[in-house]
């Protein structure tokens, strides 16, 4: 609060004071009272007024500063009225009560939508759980009745499964309750699981995979990492060149992290689009050429990495290669 604006606010009482002084002066003057006496009396009166004026300003300023300090340290600003002291001043008290009512209604709305979000997430979780049962039996049926047709069906079912998983992880994204568990994970096992999942389409697409130095441990959530690696591998299959597609997977360690990289020699990404591939809904030239792109896969990867304290970045040269590097902590970080 600025002093000048306070003066502006108090302009009425200042004017009243001045008018009062003039009236007193005129009246006492008419009564022919000694001018010195009048002068002394008015000076004392003014001193009282000015001191009172300043004190009131200081008190208000301090009070507002206190509230602002509380607000500054409060992560959920809308909880202010729950935290601030109840004021003594009757005017402040009235505002305090108004604020409290407004906040209460806000709080109700916030918890209502939080609950709705939680309910929806739980519904997605159970829906995914349910739909995986027919997916499982369909896959088993394909396995037990191998033919060219069931091979193709199996491919399609795996794609359905992939979309279902995307929905599940999307629902898990911005949730208060974290569904992950950081522990020691063997990278090779995760990679082999992903390759086993994509075996059929990788063989059909004549893709060769080479692993180098992946027998490494890192601290992350196994299922989340598997999901992320799977999205990247699925992209490598999708954006391959006509022939001789290769996927190289390897890792490097430094003192703090393991860098897991997945490189393909596919169609690559335009330099102008490289910065945007992790954006939600971004499909780019490659994605538009393909009808099945949604721009969700890599967005999810980046969000999930963020939550797990991992990094993800992409390098690419158009028509030559795409390399995605995931940085995973080597040690278990202490939760804050």
């Amino acid at each position: 609060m600025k002093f000048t604006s306070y003066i502006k606010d108090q302009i009425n009482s200042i004017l009243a004071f001045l008018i009062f002084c003039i009236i007193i002066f005129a009246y006492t003057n008419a009564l022919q009272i000694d001018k010195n006496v009048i002068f002394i009396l008015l000076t004392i009166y003014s001193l009282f007024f000015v001191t009172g004026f300043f004190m009131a300003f200081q008190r208000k300023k301090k009070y507002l500063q206190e509230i602002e300090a509380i607000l500054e340290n409060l992560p959920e600003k809308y909880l202010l009225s729950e935290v601030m002291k109840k004021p003594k001043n009757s005017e402040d008290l009235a505002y305090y009560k108004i604020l409290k009512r407004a906040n209460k209604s806000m709080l109700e709305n916030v918890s209502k939508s939080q609950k709705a979000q939680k309910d929806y997430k739980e519904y997605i979780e159970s829906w995914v759980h349910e739909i995986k049962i027919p997916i499982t039996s369909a896959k088993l049926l394909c396995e037990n009745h191998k033919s060219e047709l069931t091979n193709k069906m199996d491919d399609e079912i795996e794609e359905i499964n992939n979309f279902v998983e995307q929905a599940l992880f999307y629902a898990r994204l911005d949730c208060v309750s974290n569904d992950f568990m950081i522990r020691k994970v063997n990278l090779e096992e995760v990679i082999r699981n992903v390759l086993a999942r994509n075996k059929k389409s990788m063989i059909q697409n004549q893709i060769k995979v080479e692993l180098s130095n992946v027998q490494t441990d890192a601290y992350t959530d196994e299922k989340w990492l598997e999901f992320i690696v799977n999205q990247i591998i699925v992209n490598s299959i999708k954006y391959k060149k006509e022939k001789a597609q290769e996927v190289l997977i390897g890792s490097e360690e430094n003192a703090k992290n393991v860098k897991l990289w997945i490189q393909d020699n596919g169609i690559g990404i335009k330099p102008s689009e490289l910065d945007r591939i992790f954006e939600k809904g971004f499909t780019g030239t490659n994605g538009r050429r393909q009808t099945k792109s949604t721009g969700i896969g890599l967005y999810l990867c980046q969000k999930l990495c963020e939550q797990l304290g991992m990094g993800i970045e992409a390098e690419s040269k158009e028509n030559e290669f795409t390399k995605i590097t995931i940085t995973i902590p080597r040690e278990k970080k202490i939760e804050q």
Partner: protein
Amino acid sequence: MPKIVIVEDDKEIREELKILLQNSGYEVDLITDFENVEQQILNRESHLILLDVNLPQKDGYEICSKIRTKSKIPIIFVTSKNSAMDELNGIMRGADDYIEKPYNVPILLARIKNLLNRTYSTEDQDRKIEYKGIVLDILKSTLTYREKEIELTKTEIKTLSYLFSNKDKIIARADIIDFLWDNGVYADDNSLSVIVTRLREKLKDLGIENLIETKRGQGYKI
């Protein structure tokens, strides 16, 4: 023949899983009445249990805990619940493994086999395969013929053992590639040709020629 009990309430999955496991050389027993499952399991004297989590009466976790009070029989949870907490919950109840639905069939079979081997130490006895006097030692990764021995790479061993175990049949290239992928070698058509060429050279060094026949447009035959 190891016996596996399947506890799964979805009929389709149960029946198909039974066929799959029978085709892979296991005896299979199904639980179809979900009253007092743990007692039924204990009565059946099996070697391994595939246990679903969501079941009509008691959930799989509870059944697992109850079995653990009486038996150390290997238990694998097979469920579509896939969060880390679910898995932890399963392991805490004393399960030996946890596999997510929809499972990858080769992975499921490998885990079953590993667990059976670990528990009953029935590691494959025939680590050596012999054919026409040619001995393939899988553990040592060597090939012996007329007292001459040469070393093979892991990839070569896997390819040759698959050919040996399918002798007198024409084996499609795609089947060999599929087998290699299931065994951690991620080859494509070209790399298979390279592997077979190398194998033929090594066999020639041992004095064996024309063992691996090429059937044009079909595959290989031993």
